[in-house]
């Protein structure tokens, strides 16, 4: 936290700073995700740039007070540009010893540590497998520690309401949130409104949570516990109207937008899977836009119903994560063969198999590119940030409809749950999506192609005179009749490949940020965009000649990519996998690129990127 100015605020000091990272950590039942989201919403509304990192266990309620049950929510907010949730934190709120132990390593020296003092009894320590009490053993001496009896104080504030102890204790996260609002000098108003809306059917809970929130704020004011509070002025984002958006929300909005732009009904076939389910939840709300959501019996029915809906003329999409993607494989081939437009979203998570359901990873790239029997190319797009998920959804839909192909969208757990400010576009800023159904029965042929896009006509059932049959068997070009002849098969395989390659017309040439040529080019894709952008910025400020290329189109790759790779002495490809894009670039461009690979279910830290960059620069 770099100090800019100090202003007086009563007896306590108020310091104006540029940026801060705060992390809420507690049991998965402590409401840390809600607390973090509320703080995020409030600072975003105030105008700070933000990046968030919710990190929660796969278990809904692991045993209370234990290390596996710890859930965390980290927020980086700033008056400047923010690209990542931050490597280390300025403020840590730890609701119990387990949360403290899991997170303390990330707290900066002299950082603020707020702990729930009521949860450091012998039994609590044993559940966290601690032999000594960290509040007493001097292990926290390098931090500014604020033990607060969150449970006792919350109960005291709520005792007149007649709630039982358990219900009162469930409000203590709002007490902690109130303290944080005081610490960063933020209005409680957005959260007060949110509580009102959230518990509108339970007025007693509205009162209890609001009281706890205000009690936390007043506690700081009355006790002057912190001695100091902070002020982070609004960021200078480009002008416009903003809202905070998570990647999953952004995808949902993007698909509704694409359907409206195309004048089609949106159909989602989906089976619940972490971390993609929120897209299904979001879209199931948008019925006034004619959105049809179908919670299928399994992943296979999710995609095959989507293929059916596409055949019947809807903008049809399916959403899943890696294990579901694996189940959809055969149906993806059917969509390739029948040349129907649909969008498949893979919100990647740690694998293989069930893997790390709630953690992030980028290891489905090769599955997206190649994971089907035989020659079955599919265009693949990847979102770079939570808000970019909106634009990727629109673009994937546009390409699917223009070329009559299935399109795969890759995001990941980090993008899905992370949030950032999104400048709300006007409708004119969103590309139009022209769609034309075939209607003319004269000389109709189901596989006659548009010469530019190689798209076949979209001839939907119910159109008189266009009766025809399609399916997974190899077919003759133009007529679409079943055909097993050797040369026809080769011709069709090549046409399907050429069609996907033709999408390159819609892939913009890429321009590296930073140096246009030089010592090192970093090539990235997906959710690593923020971390790498920040690292490159830092390195270039030190005078190093580095370019950064971030790919949103993974198939086909931008036409000028090969040329750009040649302009740098060395090429680095950081990925949260074992080197999948690296493999593609080396194979396709014969470039001696090097990987930086992390497979821990977590995003890159700046230090990890800096170290590798400096190693490659021979520093």
């Amino acid at each position, binding site marked *: 936290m770099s100090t800019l100015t100090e202003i007086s605020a009563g007896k306590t000091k108020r310091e104006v700073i540029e940026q801060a990272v705060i992390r809420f950590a507690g049991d998965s039942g402590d409401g840390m995700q809600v607390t973090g989201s509320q703080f995020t919403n409030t600072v975003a509304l105030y105008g700070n740039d933000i990046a968030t990192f919710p990190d929660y266990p796969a278990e809904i309620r692991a045993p209370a007070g234990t290390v596996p049950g710890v859930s965390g929510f980290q927020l980086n907010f700033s008056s400047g540009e923010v690209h990542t949730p931050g490597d280390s934190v300025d403020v840590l709120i730890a609701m119990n010893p387990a949360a403290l132990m899991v997170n303390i390593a990330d707290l900066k020296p002299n950082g603020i540590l707020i702990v729930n003092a009521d949860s450091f009894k012998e039994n609590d320590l044993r559940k966290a497998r601690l032999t000594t009490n960290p509040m007493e053993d001097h292990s926290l001496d390098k931090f500014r520690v604020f033990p607060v009896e969150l449970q006792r104080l919350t109960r005291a504030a709520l005792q007149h309401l007649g709630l039982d102890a358990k219900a009162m204790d469930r409000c203590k996260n709002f007490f902690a949130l109130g303290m944080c609002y005081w610490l960063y000098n933020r209005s409680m108003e957005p959260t007060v409104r949110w509580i009102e809306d959230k518990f509108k059917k339970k007025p007693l809970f509205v009162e209890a949570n609001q009281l706890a929130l205000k009690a936390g704020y007043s506690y700081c004011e009355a006790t002057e516990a912190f001695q100091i509070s902070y002020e982070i002025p609004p960021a200078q984002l480009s002008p416009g109207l903003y809202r905070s958006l998570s990647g999953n929300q952004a995808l949902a909005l993007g698909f509704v937008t694409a359907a409206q732009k195309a004048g089609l009904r949106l159909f989602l076939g989906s089976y619940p899977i972490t971390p993609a389910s929120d897209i299904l939840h979001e879209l199931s709300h948008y*019925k006034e836009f004619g959105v049809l959501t179908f919670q299928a019996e399994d992943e296979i029915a999710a995609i095959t119903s989507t293929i*059916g809906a596409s*055949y019947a003329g809807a903008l049809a999409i399916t959403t899943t994560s890696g294990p579901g993607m694996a189940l959809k494989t055969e149906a993806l081939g059917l969509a390739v063969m029948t040349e129907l437009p649909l969008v498949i979203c893979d919100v990647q998570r740690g694998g293989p198999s069930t893997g790390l359901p709630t953690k992030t990873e980028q290891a489905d790239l090769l599955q997206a590119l190649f994971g089907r029997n035989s020659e079955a190319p599919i265009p693949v797009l990847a979102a770079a940030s939570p808000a970019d998920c909106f634009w990727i959804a629109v673009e994937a839909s546009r390409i699917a409809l223009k070329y009559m192909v299935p399109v795969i969208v890759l995001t990941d757990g980090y993008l899905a749950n992370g949030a950032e400010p999104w400048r709300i*576009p006007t409708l004119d800023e969103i590309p139009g999506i022209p769609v034309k159904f075939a209607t003319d029965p004269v000389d109709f042929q189901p596989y006659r192609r548009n010469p530019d896009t190689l798209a076949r006509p979209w001839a939907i059932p119910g159109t008189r005179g266009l009766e025809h049959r399609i*399916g997974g068997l190899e077919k003759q070009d133009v007529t679409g009749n079943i055909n097993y002849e050797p040369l026809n098969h080769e011709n069709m395989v090549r046409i399907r490949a050429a069609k996907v390659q033709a999408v390159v017309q819609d892939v913009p040439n890429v321009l590296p940020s930073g140096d246009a040529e030089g010592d090192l080019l970093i090539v990235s894709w997906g959710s690593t965009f923020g971390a790498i952008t920040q690292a490159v910025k830092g390195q270039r400020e030190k005078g190093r000649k580095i370019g950064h290329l971030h790919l949103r189109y993974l198939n086909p790759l931008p036409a000028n990519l090969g040329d750009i790779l040649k302009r740098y002495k060395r090429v680095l490809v950081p990925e949260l996998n074992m080197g999948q894009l690296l493999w593609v670039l080396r194979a396709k461009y014969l470039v001696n690129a090097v990987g930086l690979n992390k497979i821990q279910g977590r995003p890159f830290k700046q230090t990890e990127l800096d170290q590798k960059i400096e190693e490659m620069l021979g520093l």
Partner: protein
Amino acid sequence: MTTTALPPLTKKDFQTDQEVRWCPGCGDYAILSAVQSVFPELGVPRENFVVVSGIGCSSRFPYYMNTFGFHSIHGRAPAVASGIKIAHPELEVWVATGDGDALAIGGNHTIHMLRRNVGIKVLLFNNRIYGLTKGQYSPTSEFHKITKSTPYGSPDRPFNPVSLAIGAEATFVARSVDIFQAHLKDTLKAAASHRGSAFVEILQNCNIFNDGAWTGITEKDARSEQVLQLEHGKPLVFGKNRDRGIRRKPDGDIEVVQIGSGISESDLIVHDAHHPRPSYAFLLSHMEGRPGFPTPIGVLRAWDDLPRYEDVINEQVQDVIQKKGPGDLAKLLRAGDTWEVK
């Protein structure tokens, strides 16, 4: 949309120019012919028919029907068809499937489509064998059956397709036989007139890999002796001399009784296909394999009071539009807490 009256459709309108590639003598020819005869009589414009299939001999069906057709992948036809029907409820969607396609690899989709009551008609061609892969046992093959993959006899207990459909609470369940053409056409028409999910098991012979699959009911005299033809409102009577029937036992089970010697038709169960609960139909469906019991054909269950899935889902949309007004995209994008940067 044109309003010009078109000449009435005929069987020929539903035939395609594609060469039919089933083995000569296959029961599928008879089913194809029956469907092509029934479709023109349904009062549905040809372009509104969609025939969807999975994989297997039966699943070649769409290529031979001059309608919209979709030959999908193994077992998934009910799911593809559900997507079509939900997105476009006015279409008349039929699924052609087999015992392997619908009950083995696609069992999950079959039961869930039926449970949801999606307005799709399913024709299950049951030949009790895997034909297209040349002769392995299927989920309907008899216990101990010797096949290519079970040289010492099948260890599997078979499914009874109509029991399964009734167990999934399908609202229309019927059975017919490939060579009983008149009965088959009547059954298809009954299925077509049902608004919800309709499941029709068609007993079909595979003269290459399982010849005589159903001779127990199709050979001379067997039809009258071994088959119980169900008719709504009529007592359960069978036999060449119509001298046997089905009676309810005091314990709730059923028994076969000889009419005469103190037992008359009035003691027999009167077939009620429209009963809202599936338990009676399930009891009927379980007669085969019991010594002395006949095989029931016809409509076991036709209860059409349940709303169709596609109607429920589309009505939800309409209700919300009525309540909130049609969606306004600009407003949606600006929803929630927003802030302005100048």
